[in-house]
């Protein structure tokens, strides 16, 4: 279960606060996956008590967009900590879907990759199994088929430690790279933080999801949670 609350001493109108929280949640807590399961209790609350002496913020305020962006960035930091915990996880993985025809489909594809048990076990095993990533993209329940063109898709691993080459291309314009530098792949996959980049090449929208690997420890923790 995900529970959380965010509190601030800013004065924010309650309707505006609800809008702000919805906006930030759709870009943070609703973009994480540890195991693909949704709880009966998931809740995020936010309280703004107005202890700071400044005019109340509403949707027409000059500060509205600034505060909304700051709350979103803050919520992402908090949401990412949940993934970093991830019941036995050893890796924190950012799935970045770029150049999509629609934002919704970019998010659906990112979620599909993030929830794939086989992608997650491959990441744990440090196996550059691009086939599983492609498979998860292919079965994603897209809203619009224009979002995915099999001849335009690019999939890469991105190194997160500034080492070069930063990008390891796995699929280029729909063609699997059969001569992958396995040594470089091993180096990138050995990092605790990973990035999977999917360039759909069908538009300009993008979405991010944060996930983790699936380890033996997950089964140990969850095998007897109730008893």
């Amino acid at each position, binding site marked *: 279960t995900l529970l959380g*609350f965010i*509190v601030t001493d800013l004065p924010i109108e309650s309707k505006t606060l609800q809008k702000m929280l919805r906006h930030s949640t759709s870009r943070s807590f609703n973009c994480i996956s540890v195991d693909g399961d949704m709880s*009966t209790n*998931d809740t995020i609350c936010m309280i703004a008590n107005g202890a700071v002496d400044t005019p109340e913020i509403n949707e027409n305020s000059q500060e509205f967009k600034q505060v909304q962006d700051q709350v979103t960035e803050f919520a992402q930091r908090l949401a990412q*900590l949940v993934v970093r915990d991830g019941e036995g996880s050893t890796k924190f993985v950012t799935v970045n879907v770029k150049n999509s025809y629609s934002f919704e489909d970019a998010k659906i594809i990112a979620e599909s990759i993030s*929830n794939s048990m086989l992608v997650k076990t491959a990441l744990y095993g440090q196996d550059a199994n691009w086939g599983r990533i492609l498979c998860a993209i292919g079965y994603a329940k897209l809203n619009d088929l224009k979002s995915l063109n099999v001849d335009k898709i690019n999939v890469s691993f991105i190194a997160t430690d500034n080492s070069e080459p930063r990008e390891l291309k796995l699929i280029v314009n729909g063609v699997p790279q059969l001569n992958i530098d396995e040594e470089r792949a091993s180096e990138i996959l050995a990092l605790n933080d990973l990035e999977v980049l999917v360039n759909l090449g069908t538009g300009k929208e993008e979405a991010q999801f944060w996930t983790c690997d699936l380890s033996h420890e997950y089964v140990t*923790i969850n095998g007897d949670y109730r008893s």
Partner: protein
Amino acid sequence: NTTRKVIDKYPLYVPKSGTFPKGFQVGSIASGVKKNNALDLGIIINTNKSRPSSAAAVFTTNKFKAAPVLTSKNVLDSTNGVAINAIVVNSGCANSVTGELGMQDAKEMIDIVNEQLGDKTSPSTLVMSTGVIGQRLQMNKISEGIKKIFQENKFGSDFTSWLNISKSICTTDTFPKLVTSKFKLLNGKEYTLTGLAKGAGMICPNMA
């Protein structure tokens, strides 16, 4: 593949200090629901009286919504999110799929907090629970725990109090999640955001 070394994440992700927003106090206690005398009950209260607070929430879209989810949603609907002054959270038992009795238990939790705050006429508290599904809350321990937090004034606004409340909402978490940051508005006024979260498994939320 061999099992990889288990990483000790606590020192990596748990802060050692922090500054927190004005006008909030937090308290926590080991009520006895969790084993090993672990913290399992927390309350956050708004102490600022300069103007009414605002509250908002997003909830699970799972069709089987737990009693605290339905109860908190009712509170927000009936108040339009105005003058919410407390959140009470317990861990160890989710109070989920517990029917009418679960609803009564969730309401009792907020009633006790409202009473302690002196807000007897209007609902001003939200409630959250996490833990095992399908078991009733041990209300004797929870009620006593809530009263004890108030009567023994276990509230504080220092770093340890905030860290403890973030521990009190954990279940299988390997570390408490506490983030706090200061920001500046265009008019130069500083404000603070502090966030707590729990979650390690059963995580793929889609809240609305």
